[in-house]
């Protein structure tokens, strides 16, 4: 948006890193009255150098280490790593393992989106919308825990397959949960998404136009909310996403409300995918056994997958040692950050949380 400097006093606000409305990062906002005339994001407060540390760990040891940046979307960040490592190690996982990976990835997408929804609720001052998704998220965490063994950081997907089979009775439990949650989604809509007050706060706020979204490199649900039908699960299917029938929710408006609705529809769509996967799954081996130390051939590989926040990209260079020579991670939050200053400039201060969290920026992920 074009901002006209009308003179007068400016106020510089440091929102974060110790602020209820920011994550572990800071936005330096310059205010002219109620309008933001400059917003400069300042990430890096939780930077740990994951890329450097990955060069000192074996391919297996990297898994619990690399899922730390996004613990609420642990499979989302480890799955592309494992796919890349599999290309380097030249192993092909069995069919059942692929399906279980899809279940975990979609469960994690639901868990991550529910967390996002909870925070978005409280960012708009709607405390019930904070409690409900957080509570219903427990159901999905329980489902993921029954497979992965822990509640957030599963370390579940490994090169060659997955670590263990899904437990007996999982299908019944999952279907029961989905049945319950579909009713809850209706209640979410009634109390929050169809609420005229919530719509007045988000409709037409922070509009990201189609050409700007492409130009700035926005990814994931934010891109789909701007009217671009791009999803790695469709574009370049990994696992068995090409065998599953699903439609990507796309909204044309590109405002905060569209970004919300894309994520709400993705909750529904992820459950549909898991249902289809559970129907298609056949018994079989779940792991391609690799004995001894994993050593990749010298070479490189790069892989992208669709995590909860957008396209997750890994580029691994190997020189035949136990440790990867170089691991480059390109995370969706880092690429979406560029959109933040673009969207914030010209909006009101009160719209800052509505825009900021509609991008689903996860500071720890971006800082790596």
């Amino acid at each position: 948006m074009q901002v006209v400097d009308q003179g007068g006093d400016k106020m510089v606000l440091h929102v974060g890193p110790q602020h209820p409305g920011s994550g572990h990062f800071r936005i330096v906002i310059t205010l002219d009255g109620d309008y933001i005339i400059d917003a400069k994001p300042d990430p890096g407060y939780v930077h740990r150098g994951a890329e450097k540390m990955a060069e000192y760990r074996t391919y297996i040891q990297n898994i619990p280490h690399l899922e730390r940046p996004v613990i609420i979307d642990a499979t989302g960040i480890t799955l592309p790593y494992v796919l890349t490592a599999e290309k380097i190690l030249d192993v092909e996982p069995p069919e059942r393992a692929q399906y279980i990976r899809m279940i975990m990835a979609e469960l994690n997408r639901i868990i991550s989106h529910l967390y996002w929804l909870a925070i978005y609720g409280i960012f708009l001052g709607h405390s019930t919308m904070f409690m409900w998704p957080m509570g219903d998220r427990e159901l999905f965490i329980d489902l993921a825990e029954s497979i992965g063994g822990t509640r957030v950081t599963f370390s579940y997907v490994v090169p060659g397959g997955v670590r263990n089979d899904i437990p007996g009775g999982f299908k019944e439990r999952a279907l029961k949960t989905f049945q319950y949650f579909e009713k809850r989604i209706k209640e979410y809509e009634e109390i929050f998404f169809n609420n005229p007050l919530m719509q007045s706060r988000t409709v037409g706020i922070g509009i990201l136009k189609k050409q700007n979204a492409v130009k700035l490199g926005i990814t994931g649900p934010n891109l789909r909310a701007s009217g671009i039908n791009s999803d790695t699960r469709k574009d370049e299917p990994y696992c068995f996403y090409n065998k599953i029938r699903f439609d990507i929710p796309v909204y044309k408006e590109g405002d905060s409300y569209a970004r919300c609705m894309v994520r709400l529809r993705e909750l529904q769509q992820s459950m549909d995918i898991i249902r289809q996967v559970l129907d298609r799954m056949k018994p079989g081996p779940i792991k391609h056994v690799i004995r001894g130390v994993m050593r990749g051939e010298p070479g490189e590989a790069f892989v992208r997958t669709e995590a909860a926040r957008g396209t997750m990209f890994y580029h691994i260079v190997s020189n035949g040692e136990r440790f990867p020579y170089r691991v480059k991670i390109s995370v969706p939050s880092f690429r979406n950050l560029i959109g933040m200053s673009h969207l914030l400039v010209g909006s009101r201060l009160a719209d800052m949380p509505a825009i900021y969290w509609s991008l689903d920026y996860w500071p720890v992920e971006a800082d790596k």
Partner: protein
Amino acid sequence: MSKNTITETKLVKGLKTKFNKQITEEYVEPNRIKISTSPTNLKAVALAIKELGFDQIISQGATDYPDDNLFRVEYHAICVSIKKFRRIMFAIMTTIPKNKPEIETLLDIWPSVEFHEQETFENFGITFLNHPRMERLLLPEDWDDIPPLRKDFSLPGRD
């Protein structure tokens, strides 16, 4: 040439005829293209690739090769707006000498590369010329060691 790589081969062929011998084809696999070029031609090649439809940078990084005394700088471009190219990831590689780590920025071609180039600058010490914000992004402001992702930076307690 398998059936899966018809589009990819066509793309590379088109680029090769345009730039003659200035680009090298590293490999063409299904959904993956990698070409390399010299730093001087990088900008022209990047512009050509962008005009083909690859409108976003998904990743930009570098790798340190201390034995050869060079950095490999890689750009991974994807396409989100043209349906038939969406499956392809286009990697452009160039090498720059370690003693003069400077390269022209691609910010005016792909605005999405802004933070990636900043990150590469602080992690490898590669200066991107004409980049408006060549400053620290993730590292602390008072970082006074060598850039951390270079191979000669050693982690305490390792090696």
